[in-house]
């Protein structure tokens, strides 16, 4: 399989200062193994675009502990106390974006559209400095598209071409992020032969996917856990 990448080689694809699009809603649909690799890579000044920064010490929360981040762009950071602390101390820049605007900005980034007008956030603090325009049914603000250097996404299965399907609501931001970065790496639970996933069931077609990495996590009781290390 041409696109298969070993987990230990993944962080070589990341450069200091890169903007990473990272899939997930909380810890669901999050590329946990890829994040772990970044946490031990010593990479600096990364910008992460993701709905949240995981939870305290979990998922993207690990990158706050290991100090890889310069900036986070997303919709909800208050559930991770480390993100709030890092921001208060001036160690982390945060750009807050309404969740739907975040999703649409990434979709535009992948679709070759420079920006879009939305009613969301008109008249609020989050509209400050943004161009406002009146359409037939009211006022809208201009939001610019978001693109990344690298997208880290989590899917349930890839086939040997790199076609992807997702597990339930673990889908979330992953399919749009897969369209909006120069380099796209998918962490998956399983790789199957091309043809095993029916064409009409494929959510992310292989043309979006550059590399596939098999997760080191295992799912137990509906939750991803790190495999037990030898005692």
């Amino acid at each position, binding site marked *: 399989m041409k696109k298969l990448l070993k987990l230990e080689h993944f962080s070589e694809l990341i450069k200091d200062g890169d903007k990473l699009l990272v899939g997930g809603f909380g810890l669901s649909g999050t590329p946990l193994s890829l994040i772990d690799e970044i946490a031990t890579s010593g990479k600096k000044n990364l910008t992460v675009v993701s709905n949240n920064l995981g939870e305290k010490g979990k998922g993207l929360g690990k990158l706050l502990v290991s100090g890889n981040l310069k900036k986070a762009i997303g919709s909800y950071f208050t559930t991770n106390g480390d993100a709030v602390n890092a921001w208060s101390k001036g160690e982390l820049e945060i750009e807050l974006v309404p969740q739907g605007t975040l999703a649409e900005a990434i979709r535009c980034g992948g679709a070759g559209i420079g920006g879009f007008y939305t009613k969301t956030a008109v008249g609020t603090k989050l509209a400050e400095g943004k161009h406002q325009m009146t359409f037939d049914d009211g006022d809208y603000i201009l939001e610019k598209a978001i693109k990344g250097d690298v997208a880290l996404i989590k899917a349930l299965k890839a086939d040997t071409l790199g076609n992807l399907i997702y597990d339930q609501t673990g*889908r979330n931001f992953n399919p749009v992020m897969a369209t909006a970065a120069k380099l796209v790496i998918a962490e998956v639970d399983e790789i199957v032969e091309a043809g095993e996933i029916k064409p009409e069931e494929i959510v992310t077609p292989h043309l979006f996917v550059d590399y596939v990495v098999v997760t080191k996590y295992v799912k137990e009781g509906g939750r991803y856990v790190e495999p037990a290390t030898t005692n």
Partner: protein
Amino acid sequence: MSQQQRIKIARRIAEEFEDNQIINLGVGIPTLIPDYIEGKDVYLHSENGLLGMGPTPEEEFVNMDLISASKKPVSVETGASIFDSSDSFLMIRGGHVDVAVLGTLQVDETGEVANWAVPGQNILGVGGAMDLVAGAKKIIIATMHTSKDGTPKLLKKLTFPSSGVRKVDMIVTEHAVFEFKDEKMFLIEVLSDITLEELKEITPASYELSTKKLIRV
């Protein structure tokens, strides 16, 4: 007591739902509502990409990749569908969700809502609040009448940051139901043994009595 009051609010809001509606429930009191939707075929939409959200599953069926917007495990109803975040917010922003039930920090007498940030505190979370305020066809606010220390939430003017220029349609508290029409607030039901004078005291927002509809429950 407080939980009983929250349940009363949830129950009253569930009465507003109609068959076949698409409903999005926010965090807080709205999460109690599914238990009180009796005999109505509605479809619950969850912003993280699910239409047809079902109740909390038994532990053996928990999958943390099947969760609600509150990041709690859920199940799916027959005929449910799953989609990505951009389609989910297309549904919200594009007016395809019939009713959004939201918690709030403040609402003013025109129906403008503040439900995402408190001045002087870290403003680091907005989630889907502004998208729902901008896009849902009908917005019902589920809230205790005042905050825990008794500070009024239904005000003449917002003192917290606004969630958007779109006005809400209805407020349900443990004491009363208010409706908005043309940016005017009307008291349509009293839900507790509070007197109208006492209600006025804890409600700085100006409102009119809807004489046609005012019901004491």
